[in-house]
């Protein structure tokens, strides 16, 4: 039987991870405004709290107190289910991410990961592909042509970029030989980051991650000049808040996946030395801080791109996905295969 200490440990880890995801998503909205202001030479929010730090709370309060508006739709249930799916899929992925190696507290090792399944990366892809339903069902149930157009655009974009994303991952997997994010982290100790071995795979993954989170330059789903507000045109109050919040949670999660897969996760140079000389706890708390520094950099990168690069046209988006990224990632797979099997190939060719 599973002992109760294990259940308590895992529950604490899960609650903490959940809370951190929510807080990071909340403060991403604040950071987005601040970064936008910085890039456009403005001040940004500065009224609620010091430097506008209480602004996300004020926004949340405002969204909750707004009037709940239902459009004239025969599918009220699906209209409510849409944002619920978007929100829950955005929060589900954090279960498989290793936030650190282990802490030694109360005489037991606490693994800083909710669950270590050996198909963690596939789980991530599964959850992402289910996330499309939140947008499609919400857009369709709104009973509005513009919402439906936005939903169809968002969904077709996500489905097409998922293909390139999966193919770019295959090249990485051929090298790591495992799907478990914990093992992938462990393989990158020191500065042995995957990005140095698989730069092309990283580039494709980054572009696809932008498309998956529906951020500029790929935010055609909410293209204001053509589609009003996209799939959430008919939503109001906290239901719209959930859609917007899910976008920020997705951004946080994909920044985390990028850091874990390509930038060593919680590893930093000299971590082994820290574990031996300073102690497990100090070394791992520093590791968590390093991981969050990487994540914050990638979130900043998302915002930087958003406020710098204009939006693509729809045919350009589809061309980039199908004609450039997919052949490029297939070529990457072939090159990786040849490099991995170079000794066998040399022997086969008689060198």
């Amino acid at each position, binding site marked *: 039987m599973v002992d109760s200490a294990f259940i308590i440990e895992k529950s604490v880890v899960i609650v903490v991870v959940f809370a951190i995801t929510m807080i990071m998503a909340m403060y991403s909205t604040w950071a987005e405004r601040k970064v936008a202001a910085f890039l456009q030479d403005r001040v940004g929010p500065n009224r609620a709290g010091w430097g506008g730090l209480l602004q996300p709370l004020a926004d949340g309060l405002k969204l909750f107190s707004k009037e709940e508006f239902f459009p004239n739709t025969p599918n009220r249930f699906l209209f409510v289910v849409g944002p619920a799916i978007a929100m829950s899929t955005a929060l589900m992925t954090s279960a498989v991410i290793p936030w650190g190696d282990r802490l030694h507290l109360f005489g037991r090792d606490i693994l800083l990961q909710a669950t270590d399944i050996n*198909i963690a990366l596939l789980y991530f892809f599964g959850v992402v592909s*289910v996330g499309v339903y939140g947008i*499609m069902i919400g857009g369709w149930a709104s009973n509005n042509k513009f919402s439906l157009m936005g939903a169809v655009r968002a969904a077709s974009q996500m489905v097409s970029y998922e293909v390139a994303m999966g193919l770019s991952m295959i090249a990485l997997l051929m090298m790591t030989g495992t799907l478990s994010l914990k093992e992938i982290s462990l393989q990158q100790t020191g500065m042995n980051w995957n990005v140095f071995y698989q730069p092309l795979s990283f580039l494709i993954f980054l572009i696809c991650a932008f498309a998956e989170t529906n951020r500029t330059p790929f935010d055609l789903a909410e293209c204001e000049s053509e589609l009003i507000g996209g799939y959430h045109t008919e939503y109001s109050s906290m239901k719209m808040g959930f859609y917007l919040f899910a976008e920020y949670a997705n951004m946080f999660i994909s920044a985390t996946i990028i850091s874990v897969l390509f930038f060593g996760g919680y590893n930093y140079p000299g971590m082994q030395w820290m574990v031996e000389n300073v102690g497990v706890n100090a070394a791992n708390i520093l590791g968590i801080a390093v991981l969050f520094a990487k994540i914050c950099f990638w979130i900043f990168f998302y915002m930087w791109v958003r406020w710098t690069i204009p939006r693509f046209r729809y045919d350009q988006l589809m061309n980039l996905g199908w004609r450039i990224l997919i052949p490029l990632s297939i070529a990457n797979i072939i090159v990786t295969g040849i490099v991995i099997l170079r000794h066998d190939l040399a022997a086969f060719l008689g060198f």
Partner: protein
Amino acid sequence: MIHIPDFANATTVQVIFCFLAFITVITAFLTIFSRNPIHSAIYLVICFFSIAGHYLLLNAQFLAIVHIIVYSGAIMILFLFTIMLMNLNERHQVHKPRITRLGAIVSFCLIVIVLITIFINSKPIVGDYDSTGEDFQSIKVLGKILLNEYMVPFEFASILLLVAMIGTVLLSKKEKLNK
């Protein structure tokens, strides 16, 4: 023989199985009976999810996740796409001719007869399962088996998919030429 389950002493796995099986069957029926095509598609998605749950109960994590990615994440999304864009009206019920209905009833009866004979003649596995000591959940073992022992069926399946893909491209091209 038909075993009547012992609900009083059911283990957790059995309870979960009954729950999942209930959802699977109910949503499968609702897929057929619901009038709105989009509702049918959504019920089918729920049905696929509960089938993935059955795979998880059988300890086949890889199969469950791939099932979700392929069926719920790709195929059903495309299905929903076409249905949403076609804007099928629920009042457009095509009146089927009598011969079609008769054919449906006859084929249904035949399938029921076949299924009942299968259930009557099937023999439950007696004794324990032999354990090979290999972890078939891990993708490493699975990949090696698929590309060594089951290489030929695996390649046949991929050729089948390729043919279907080429066929689809050809059909869509033809339609454009006619216009």
